């Protein structure tokens, strides 16, 4: 399963990159992905962020389809 993962705002600073391709076998939920990404980038643990799957904010219980676009979104600041 390939995911395209994007990091926005301060999260791109924390991970050192704006996006990456993420190879993953098996199906993940959003919660599974959250654990994997915080394992990979432990500095994320102290940060508030939401996870969007295919441009929609998703709950930890939601499954992630293969080839999805995942985005880690820090607090919004529009306006």
């Amino acid at each position, binding site marked *: 399963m390939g995911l395209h993962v994007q990091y*926005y*705002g301060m999260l791109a600073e924390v991970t050192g990159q704006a996006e990456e391709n993420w190879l993953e076998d098996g199906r993940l939920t959003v919660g599974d992905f959250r654990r994997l990404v915080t394992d990979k980038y432990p500095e994320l643990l102290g940060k508030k962020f939401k996870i969007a799957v295919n441009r929609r904010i998703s709950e930890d219980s939601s499954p992630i389809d293969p080839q999805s676009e995942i985005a880690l979104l820090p*607090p*919004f*600041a*529009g306006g």
Partner: protein
Amino acid sequence: MEKEHKPRKVFVEGPISPDFIAKSIASHQSKTNIGAHAIFLGQIRADEKEGGVVSGIEYTAYEEMANDVFHEIREAAFARFELTCLHIYHSLGLVPTGEISLFVFVSSPHRRAAFEASEFIVEEIKNNAPIFGKELVGEGGDFRWKENR
């Protein structure tokens, strides 16, 4: 209203000028069923932070998702309120202190719908649009990530 409103361009590069706002207002004077316009403008404050005064905000966005969100906000506003027109503009990139980064322009036959829609739309944008802001602080290149409350 059941009709779908087509997505419109929201993001503009840099600050939104008073002249752009004037042109938007003028272009609505031919719509003679409008009785009330409510306009909201977000302007960058020179807040004092540790390390100095905010000199501007550098905006970025998850643009594809933000455009979806703006489209949903438009649809929700047209469904809820009796509106003639609705335009939203938001800056990307650097907006210096004192300049405008958000322009929400709501027009209706009647004032109540205009007021209520304006407030609804601004709150929706603040809460749901994936837009990120880096406040530039002081002279030394310091910054601080902004967070809406």
